[in-house]
């Protein structure tokens, strides 16, 4: 490792903090170059991919106007689905994580192992099976259907992360709550959840990202334009005759904005270190 491990520099060294910032910006510039390229293409007038200049000299916003007029609704759908998935993941995963963390259960090990194994199943296998099940259940082309499917990545992940955090909540705190006469549900809601705030935010953030980026389920489980997440909306631009890359990239840029805002806001709470005991 080239970078020495020092949390906070000791005073007296000639290495000002802004130099670290400069290094950080440099790293960012390299890693985000593809993102820059995306923005660059989105502002080019031609929409062709060959020999794109390094800078968008002839600014054109036609990609953005197309994207806004045609993908606005899809962006909203994506947002609803992703937020719905976050809520669903937390509602399903946290109670389970709590029980798995705080109580000795004979089958807890088996459940955790099952959760881990679930991560190994390729998405297509799930999507294939869901299609038929959804046809029978009338869940095709529905927001709830997409929320359920998009949570396949979030729920196992949330169970692992939140459980790992909750194991560190002292038993005595929970017992004290119980002695005060609170029921299981109230103990859980008013004591355990507030203590796990950071773990919950982490789980929520990841669930959001998983659902936001989903393309497979969107493609599989929707057949009409009524319910169409923006990932699928993007795909419709890349078609038979015209591949309008400016619009594709403009949509991608617009689609990233809500997610980036959320990221920046949530970042300070991220307590991913709680995964320490997630897989043991």
């Amino acid at each position, binding site marked *: 490792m080239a970078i020495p491990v020092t949390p906070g520099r000791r005073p007296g060294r000639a290495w000002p903090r802004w130099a670290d910032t400069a290094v950080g910006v440099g790293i960012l510039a390299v890693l985000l170059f593809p993102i820059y390229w995306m923005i660059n293409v989105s502002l080019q007038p031609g929409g062709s*991919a060959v020999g794109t200049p390094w800078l968008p000299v002839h600014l054109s916003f036609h990609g953005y106007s197309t994207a806004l007029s045609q993908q606005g609704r899809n962006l909203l759908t994506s947002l609803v689905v992703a937020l719905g998935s976050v809520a669903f993941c937390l509602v399903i995963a946290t109670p389970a994580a709590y029980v798995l963390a705080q109580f000795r259960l004979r089958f807890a090990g088996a459940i955790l192992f099952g959760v881990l194994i679930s991560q190994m199943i390729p998405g*297509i296998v799930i*999507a294939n099976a869901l*299609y*038929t099940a959804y*046809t029978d259940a009338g869940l095709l082309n529905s927001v709830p259907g997409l929320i359920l499917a998009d949570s396949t990545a979030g729920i196992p992940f949330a169970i692992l992360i939140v459980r790992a955090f909750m194991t560190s909540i002292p038993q005595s705190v929970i017992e004290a709550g119980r002695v005060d006469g609170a029921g299981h549900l109230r103990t859980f809601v008013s004591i355990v959840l507030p203590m796990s705030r950071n773990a919950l935010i982490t789980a929520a953030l990841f669930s959001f990202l998983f659902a936001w980026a989903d393309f497979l389920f969107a*493609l599989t*489980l929707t057949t009409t334009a009524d319910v169409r997440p923006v990932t699928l909306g993007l795909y419709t631009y*890349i078609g038979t*005759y015209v591949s309008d890359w400016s619009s594709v990239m403009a949509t991608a840029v617009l689609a990233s904005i809500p997610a980036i805002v959320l990221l920046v806001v949530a970042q300070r709470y991220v307590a991913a270190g709680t995964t320490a005991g997630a897989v043991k």
Partner: protein
Amino acid sequence: MFRSTRSRKAPAALASILAIPLTLTACGGSDSGSDSGGTATLRVLDYYSNEPGRTVWQKALEACASQAGATISREAVPGATLIQKVLQQASSKTLPDLLMLDNPDLQQIAQTGALTPLDTFGLKADGFAKGVVDASTYQGKLYGLQPVTNTIGLFYNTDILTKAGVTPPTTWEELKTAARKLTSGSQYGLAFSAPANYEGTWQFLPFMWSNGGDEKNIATPETAQALQLWVDLMKAGSVSKSALNWTQADVNDQFRAGKAAMMVNGPWQFPVLDADKALHYAVVKIPAPAAGRPIVAPLGGETWTVPQTGNKDKQAKAAKVVACLNSDESQVNLAKQNQTIPTRTALLASFSSANPNVKGFADQIPTARSRTGELGADWPKAATKIYTAFQSALTGQADPAKALEQAQNG
């Protein structure tokens, strides 16, 4: 158009990570459509999801439906997802009343039993180009009618060729010489598309077939010579190695940007190319192995079918729509608007004199072949062998003969 032109590779591949309902459902099942008599609404499924094709087909379908006393409810999905959608619908018994299929897919779908033979409705394919009929026929029965078709030809940038004093090549030798002469700096003489998928196979076919190669057995000297041509062009530096990863749309981008003086591509690129006023181009037939030998080009385009929905009344109406789409007038009309070619041979001469830009393509239609005419539902396996072989030879893993032999033996 046809399977491989629909989209760029990345999205196409991603998109086909699709859902197919992998369950067993019992056979039978019937559409309990209640409306018999009066105006029926026909469900239509096709893949013209983008403009301008979307509107062109919408208008044609509406006009034909109203003649048949019906209205339409149409769903147009992205190209690469059509087959998966059809299979989903087949298993959930929700097939549409009128289904458009890319012609090489027809036999595969007909084999499942999901389509109705068109002779049930008294439809025949008299006067259609033979290759087109072959593609729509499964086990001796006609399952679809294709109003318009397309194929690939050799596009060339007239400015670049004039400046270099090169005339459009008509034979393989001329092609090699011209491509070499036209290569300089960042400009390649020729561009084609040779990725590891059906799109690449489609581009290789005119070379393979014109030289007498055949998909039944690709380990033959004829196919090896055709592959040698591709290898020579790439080795000489006249074609970029990137061709291994280019879709036809990428090839078109290269040509448009002046990075390639000639390209192998189809008439569906006209609107994109014409949008660039500074670009001057023309189209000729794919060069032949030797002077005077005929070109055998592959036929593209979509065929219209009537699935087994169990609703006799709607099926009959759907068949009427198919017939209407294939009338002389409709063929010419669709061909004009879609930059394609009518499939009734009697229409070809007048059509290409009225639309000179498609002449290079139209001239190849009478001798053109369909991909599935010979192998039917086994075509995908052969197509896979073909692209496996040329990828292996073009990357220098094996010489053409060896590569073909390895691929043929799986």
